[in-house]
């Protein structure tokens, strides 16, 4: 009989998620202090963000989280083909998110708005702070999204091959946990960056 400990595996994943929460937590703390100090600047700087793209990306991430959660149900019921489809939808959502981000950031770079640019040097300190936090926090979030996409691709291949099945699926569960973390962070980033105008 093989030895495995699914509870232990999940607990390990949660410990990792805690470190991620504290990582982003630190950034949210910086955001809170800086916003308290430069409330007016944050307000005016946020006008440059595209709330429509932000909203679309929020919806896309919520849907992708639901499909990952459903894929676990599918695998538990032995419907591996359906699980692969659900994971594929998740990856499509991730791709849509990335394309939106490409246009969003691309537009900002085009008008000369990026960390260290000449335009940023002409701004108030508070506005520079806002955009620095915006690029760093959404950038770090995007990095997590890419990593999550890679993990879920591996998981999808394994579900397809049957290596992940109704008797062993802890890798799918942990990949799902990571994906929900990406969603969780965005739930706070969205109102704090896009909706403060």
């Amino acid at each position, binding site marked *: 009989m093989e030895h495995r400990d699914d509870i232990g595996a999940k607990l390990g994943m949660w410990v990792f998620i805690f470190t991620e929460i504290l990582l982003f937590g630190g950034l949210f703390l910086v955001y809170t202090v800086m916003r308290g100090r430069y409330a007016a600047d944050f307000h005016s700087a946020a006008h440059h963000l595209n709330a429509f793209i932000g909203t679309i990306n929020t919806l896309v991430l919520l849907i992708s989280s639901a499909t990952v959660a459903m894929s676990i149900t599918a695998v538990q019921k032995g419907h591996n083909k359906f699980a692969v489809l659900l994971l594929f939808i998740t990856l499509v959502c991730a791709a849509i998110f990335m394309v939106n981000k490409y246009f969003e950031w691309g537009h900002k770079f085009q008008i000369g708005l990026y960390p260290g640019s000449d335009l940023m040097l002409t701004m108030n300190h508070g506005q520079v702070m806002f955009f620095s936090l915006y690029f760093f926090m959404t950038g770090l979030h995007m990095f997590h999204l890419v990593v999550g996409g890679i993990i879920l691709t591996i998981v999808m291949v394994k579900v397809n091959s049957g290596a992940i099945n109704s008797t062993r699926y802890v890798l799918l569960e942990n990949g799902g946990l990571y994906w*929900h973390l990406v969603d969780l962070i965005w739930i*706070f980033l969205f109102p704090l960056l896009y909706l403060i105008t």
Partner: protein
Amino acid sequence: MEAETVHITPYRTYAWVLITLLAFTFLTITVTWINLSALTVLVALAIATIKAGIVLTYFMHLKFESSLFRIFVVGVLAIYVLVIIFTMSDYLFR
């Protein structure tokens, strides 16, 4: 071997959770349009916290895991709240 039976969450549950989360998202956007000035941030954060709670409970399966997981999560969030309180009290009343 696993002593406890595995809990299989029905698709229906996840569909309802998704609809709830989408509804809260539109609520946040509407609230920021109405513009309650200082209250807006608090309302937006309150809604975000509710959404995060729903994601943790259902999508991340905390409701169906052993209570050890819930204790850990609550503990870590408590530590984070303490960090916020200490930092802000230092920053505001220095």
